[in-house]
């Protein structure tokens, strides 16, 4: 194996490990609001590791540039989905995303 292949294997392995842990988190955490935290590493971390591996191989080629765009898109718009999902969950549960009277919110 060449040095590039070793680096790619490490990056791809790390990306896959992050995704496995995200799947485990969504499967095992007890509540919806806790599970939602495990979507973010799959959009903010894993795609960058895969894009980095593509870049090691392709550099400034078409594939390298588009891989970076995919990672950037997921980084910027993944949080929009997470935010929208959390808000929708609270609206369904409470009728309003704001805390109910008596609901515990730690304030600074």
């Amino acid at each position, binding site marked *: 194996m060449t040095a590039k292949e070793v680096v790619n294997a490490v990056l791809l392995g790390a990306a896959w490990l992050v995704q496995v842990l995200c799947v485990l988190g969504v*499967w095992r955490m007890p509540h919806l609001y806790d599970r939602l935290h495990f979507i973010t590493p799959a959009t903010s971390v894993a795609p960058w590791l895969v894009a980095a591996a593509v870049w090691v191989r392709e550099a400034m080629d078409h594939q390298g540039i588009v891989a970076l765009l995919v990672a950037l898109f997921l980084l910027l718009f993944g949080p929009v989905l997470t935010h*929208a999902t959390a808000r929708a969950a609270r609206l369904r549960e409470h009728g309003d995303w704001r805390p109910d009277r008596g609901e515990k919110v730690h304030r600074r």
Partner: protein
Amino acid sequence: MTEWFWAAAAMLALLLPCGLVAMRGSIMDRLLGLELASPITSASLLALAEAFNRSIYVDLALVYAVLSFVTTLVVVRLLERWV
């Protein structure tokens, strides 16, 4: 069989537990299965592009990421108020 092929296969295999998540629990819990499957699919398409040396798969990954975002957002908004 390069490291790309194995990575793509391993990532695609993770769609099975995502599908199982999408089949249990409340409707919002099921939505998480769908939300998690989207970035995993995009990443696996990037890996498949390198495995088979087809640059079209990379374009597919980008188009898929954009369309799945829009679709999931529409579903979330529907679940917010109407379903």
